[in-house]
């Protein structure tokens, strides 16, 4: 009897327990379906309403990538000098750039890769919306083309080699050093496509930006050819001056659209993104502006070679970048400007031999820049004034400060940064002018093609 009662009781409890456990597991099926409020699932980007945010994402990633690689670029040139504790910056400062394990280029590389991918993704996604007739504002697509063009120009400018075409888990092989100019070709194509849309929508601002960026890419492509004519890291020598008809035409066209002292700049703020550089330079003080621009011990700032006055644009740019304690992380960075367009045209004039006339294209465009600075006019015929090439390099140095041009100019005009190491081991910037940044360790180890073909990726 007791045994039966035990059995019955056990049976009851067992049933109860089983029911309880089944209840727990069943109830958990709905409990297990938790939501993620922190991020956006990829499928949500198929909604055409996401188009502005996708284009803005391209802008933000390109702007951040630009600041990230510009920090290393400026340090490797004479624009910034290392004064801090992180030896990786010293390596760049003395002109050694191809160490793939350099922590700073290695840290910047992913942001450049993200910028390229995101801007390409924005073009693809918004083009699909456009084709389906669901894109509410076609300017968003035109913007995406602009950002992608900047990204590709940046890669062509800054890197010796780069994998283009990687997509999420699928890694593409690098372009190869000899084909890096194809990045400019893509940038030019993108600006052309974007320009067509901007013209269709009659967006003058975008037309200007796209035209100027195309001029910028075309000029950069010509510079690249100058620095890479016979293989990696072997500059052409000679004057270093370039002239590209398409660049000149676009520069002239853009200037007709531009307002006085127009600049296309990335703006940064505490509520969006910072400019990456400010934290290292203004806050942490790993770098300061180089002696070639400002010598701190004597407070000697770059002076205009004609007037002898402190260069107003350099002072303005340096002051703007340094900012205040409230803005020191968020100074704007210029991508392309009317000043650069004038200087492209001036260089073209110089290349054409137009050097001695105050009314020639060289002097006219140089003086257009000087007028923006409130400086007296340059006269190439005046022996007291610098020679045209020196004048061009000076104006580029002063007016394109922290715009990713200086290292190229040092190379192509045969100059050296004051910190470049000429003793053993001699810096690559000295021994192999034309050297820029490598595919870094993070990509080398993660890209199967590079793992299998390491020599091709270096």
């Amino acid at each position, binding site marked *: 009897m007791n045994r039966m009662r035990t059995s019955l009781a056990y049976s009851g409890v067992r049933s109860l327990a089983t029911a309880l456990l089944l209840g727990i597991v069943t109830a958990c099926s709905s409990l297990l379906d938790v939501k993620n409020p922190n991020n956006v699932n*990829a499928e949500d980007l198929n909604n055409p309403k996401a188009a502005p945010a996708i284009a803005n994402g391209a802008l933000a990633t390109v702007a951040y990538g630009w600041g990230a690689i510009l920090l290393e670029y400026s340090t490797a040139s004479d624009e910034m000098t290392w004064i801090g504790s992180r030896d990786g910056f010293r390596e760049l400062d003395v002109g050694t750039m191809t160490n793939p394990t350099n922590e700073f280029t290695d840290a910047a590389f992913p942001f450049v890769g993200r910028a390229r991918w995101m801007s390409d993704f924005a073009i693809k996604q918004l083009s699909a919306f456009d084709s389906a007739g669901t894109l509410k504002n076609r300017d968003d697509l035109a913007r995406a083309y602009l950002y992608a063009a900047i990204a590709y120009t940046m890669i062509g400018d800054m890197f010796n080699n780069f994998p283009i075409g990687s997509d999420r888990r699928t890694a593409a092989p690098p372009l190869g050093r000899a084909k890096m100019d194809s990045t400019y070709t893509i940038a030019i194509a993108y600006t052309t496509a974007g320009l067509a849309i901007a013209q269709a929508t009659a967006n003058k601002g975008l037309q200007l930006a796209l035209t100027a960026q195309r001029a910028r890419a075309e000029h950069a492509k010509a510079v690249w050819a100058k620095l890479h004519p016979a293989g990696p890291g072997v500059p052409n020598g000679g004057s270093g001056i370039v002239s590209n008809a398409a660049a000149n035409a676009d520069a002239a066209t853009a200037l007709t659209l531009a307002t006085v002292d127009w600049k296309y700049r990335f703006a940064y703020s505490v509520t969006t993104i910072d400019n990456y550089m400010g934290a290292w330079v203004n806050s942490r003080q790993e770098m300061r502006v180089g002696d070639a621009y400002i010598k701190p011990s004597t407070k000697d700032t770059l002076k205009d070679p004609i007037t002898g006055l402190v260069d107003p644009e350099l002072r303005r740019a340096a002051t703007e970048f340094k900012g205040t304690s409230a803005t020191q992380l968020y100074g704007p960075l210029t991508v392309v400007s009317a000043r650069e367009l004038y200087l492209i045209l001036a260089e073209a004039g110089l290349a054409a031999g137009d050097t001695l006339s105050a009314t020639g294209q060289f002097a006219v465009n140089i003086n257009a820049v000087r007028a923006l600075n409130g400086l007296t006019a340059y006269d190439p015929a005046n022996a007291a004034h610098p020679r045209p090439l020196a004048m061009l390099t000076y104006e580029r140095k002063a007016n394109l400060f922290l715009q990713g041009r200086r290292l190229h100019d040092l190379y192509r005009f045969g100059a050296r940064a004051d910190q470049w190491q000429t003793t053993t081991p001699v810096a690559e910037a000295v021994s192999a002018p034309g050297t820029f940044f490598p595919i870094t360790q993070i990509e080398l180890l993660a890209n199967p093609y590079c793992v299998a073909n390491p020599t091709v990726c270096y």
Partner: protein
Amino acid sequence: MRTSRPIPSSARIAATLVVAVYLCANGVVAQGTGTIRGTVTDALTKRPVDGVQVYVAGTELGTLTGADGRYQFSVRAGDIEIRTRRVGFAAEVQKATVAAGRAVELNFELRLAAVALDVVVVTGAGAETEKRKLGNTVTTIDASTLRNAPASNVSEQLSARDPAVAVLPSGGLAGEGAQIRIRGAASLTQANEPVVYVDGVRVDRSGGFGDNVGTGGGGTPSRLDDINPEAIDHMEVLKGAAATTLYGTEASAGVIQIFTKKGARGAPRWDFMSEQGFSRYPPSRYPAEAGFARWDTWQSCVAAGNDTVPCQTKLPVAGRLSQFYGTTIRPFEVFERNFVQRLFETGYTGTYSAAVSGGNTGVTYYVNGRYFTENGPFGGSNLGPAADVDRKAQATASLDLVPTDRIKVRVTTGYTDAHHETPTNNNSIYAPLTNAMFSHPELATCVTVRASSQPDGNGGCTGPGNPTGVASFGTVREDMQRTNKQDTKHFIGSINASYQALPSLAVEGTLGVDMSSQLSQGFRAFDNDVDGFTLVAPGGSKVVDNRTQRIVTAEGKTTWRRSFGPQWASTFVAGGQGFITKLEDEGSFGGVFPARLEVTVAGFNQNAFERSLQTVNAGVFGQEQLGFRDYAFLTVGGRYDRNSAFGKTSKGVFYPKASLSLQPSLLPSWAGSRFTSRLSTFRVRGAIGQSGLQPGAFDKFTTFSPLGSELGPGLAPNNLGNPDLKPEVSTEWELGTELGALSDRAALDITYWRRRTRDALYLRQYAPSGGFPSLQLSNVGEIKSGGYDIIASFLPVNTGKLSLKLFANATWMWAFVTKLGGAPPLKVGGSYPRYRNFVKEGYPVGALFGAKLPGPCSARPAGATYRCLNPGENPYDLTGPAGTPDRKPDTDAELLAYFAVPRALNLLNPLLVDENGNGDPLDHYLGKSTPDWQGAFGMNATVVRNFELGAVFEYKFGNYTITNLTDAFRKSNPMIGRNLRRAAQVEATMLNPASTAQERLAASRTWAYELKALSPYDGLNQNENGKFLRFRELSLTYNVPASYANRFGFGHMSITAAGRNLALWTPYTGIDPETNEYGRGGASPDLGGIDQNFGQAIDAFGFALPRRFTFTVRVGF
């Protein structure tokens, strides 16, 4: 007109419970019962023993003895067998016949025993089970044995008790939490910290200051230390998958369960404790800062090409420095100042605790209140408000209801209100200690960029200045303006009810909640640039992080015990267990204040952060334990688990287990064998099981994160996503034996274990050119590990005047990353190159890689072609036969010519070797960051009955390599370093025109082989042997005889003097071989990730463990 409202369901349940308890309690009266009571004493000292479980054999009916050793409980009338259980003592058994309404007096005298197989455990065992029945090991730490130990929190209580449980103290700031590793790393990316339960309820085990407040890595508090150590009865530790299977997903790194104290029946018993202590950092661990003057006068400084003002105000000119220090400084003569010591003081600790317990046959209670305060040995309060402070007010209560002998209800609550402060520390350039260590005495000045004052002639300034000569970032005084604070409220509550439905069948349920709310703040005041030097947030800033977490635990299980004749017994357990974890972390930032304001909204720059995470884990488990004649036990079981990380449509995971325990020494035939006199206890056991670790709740999805742009809100690639993601599974087996000899006065416990973690979750880096640079979790890894756990104890003397127990334990362990599925290696610290700990296939977890100098050609393997040095060659190519570099190592003669004139160290870049020729000079294996051996040894002694002496030593050795990043800077970095005496001396020799070429050649060798470090030489000259032996604990207690204690009105009284971290023996030259850069939660408050998992043995400007001395008085009545 009033509207009647329905009675809430909770109220109905409560009312039903009260009625049921009342009815059941009355039921007790109606049955025929008697009373068992008596006293339990130590057979040797004759002193009462508290905390002894006295119970009816074969049942859970019983009670605990009080401080006076007394016990009493009711039993049904009849013949009964009473047993005792207490860690450290042999079990005793007595039989008695109890008559209804009568009391039986049973007194027990307990003998110390080194073997403790009769200890009952519940964690991971399904139901309460004696250890000897389990095939896996479970460590029991009896808190009463730690009563005299200088351990002020749970982490310290766990330290050095079990060799497989490594407590990594992180650093020496007040209230700094420790990381805990059980049998090393079971996972590559998920938290390798054991999950923690208190009275059956999963609790918050996180650390740090939340998502948004950082201190530099250390000084991080541990939520584990919120648990009131005075209220802990004992702890159980499960060491691996073979033991933790029933906890399923999340448990493969081990389980710690803490059991709080219960009340004992009887009149209210009061216990009070007061502890006062002080602490000091060991000064010898911080070498002085060294430097030297470069010029004699400011004129010679100017003549060398420098500007006049710097030469007169801040450059290393001997004349200026002589005036500054009030002593003679000569050029190129190294001198030292110890700036670090200015930041140290004598720390203070105070602890006060009061407890009351008691009860009757139906109800017992225990209530404890504890207040702990510590102002640690970090000082410098004259420089700024930064401080290391830790305060905790804690309250714990438990209520045990036994309305009938079939029903038990236990309600526990614990509440902690904590306040914690720590200075910015470790690898932060804004940390006062860090910058004090990097100071340059030759750069001391009272003139900064934006302020100045006058030298006081004794190495100080009359006002603003840079009197320690920091080279960048901020002065020490400015660093002292930064504060990091945290206020926490932490509640743990549980209700557990068990019902003995039948003598063989019990049902038990537990429901509990853990709620923690921590508010962390990092603050720099509006005018924090007090020396006019720093440019980092001179307008002040504040960052706030509010992290709240709620964990709800629900568990129900049924235990069915049966016998099959006289030989076989069965215990079957089935149940379900679930957790719902909800984490919310919100923060805000405000920078650049307009005035002395201390709220983020006052900042000109403002930002906000938010993270929300909900995780649900639920599973069912079952286990059958089959026993044969009480000496052989086979256990099989498993758990089926589901987790929200995989969504509601995903499949569950089943984790099986099996174990076998055989104790031949319990066989009747054993007693008459030849072995009896030699081997009083002999058990062999084996176990195998699985458990897992889950990825995060959203790791499988492809996501984009918000990234604002100047034109409006934007989206950027975030998580690449992996729809095939699943939990990683650890399979562990272990074989072991326990041996007892000399009537169990000598014991040896050896366990050999192996673990394989398959489908290990690994943060795979896909090519960042593909657009998603974030690391993506993938099940591509595998870890294999194994080792021995050895525990020995011996009672050599056990007389009335002296009882001595010696113990020693050791763990030998290895762990290798055996697969990464082609994924690239990962490094601790991301792109930061100075941390060299890697997860790399084919190497130990956390292995170190870095640069090497070329070695002698005689040591180069045959056929190898990489760079090497022949006799007479040096690791430089600074020159050659023609006086220019020749792509060959320089000979002594070449260098002697080169060093005929002074040379700057920046020119001396040694040659590196690339042994595998892959173009990466930083991938040379340089050792591992975890030791082969770790453990502890010590003794406990009772002398002339009233004195108790305890000592514990802890050690690590065997291929244990520490990254001494602190000294890598102090040896090499030209800006914030080269201030160790030998580094300064080498540089002075190089620059001194009076040095000979031979002296410079010798200095260049020292530079290459001992000093040169950091990028691009990362890993070179920064690793050291980290083996150590530490005198961890010493305590001496005088138990005041009862006759004296009674004169003061106390039932018992004891006085203890104790010390912690009293001595350190180590060849390690850095600050402390036990400091860890990331602390507990310094890299991740959730304790996961590569950095948190493998950032051990990185000494990056941390605080040495302080010596702490305490004096404790305990009284009770």
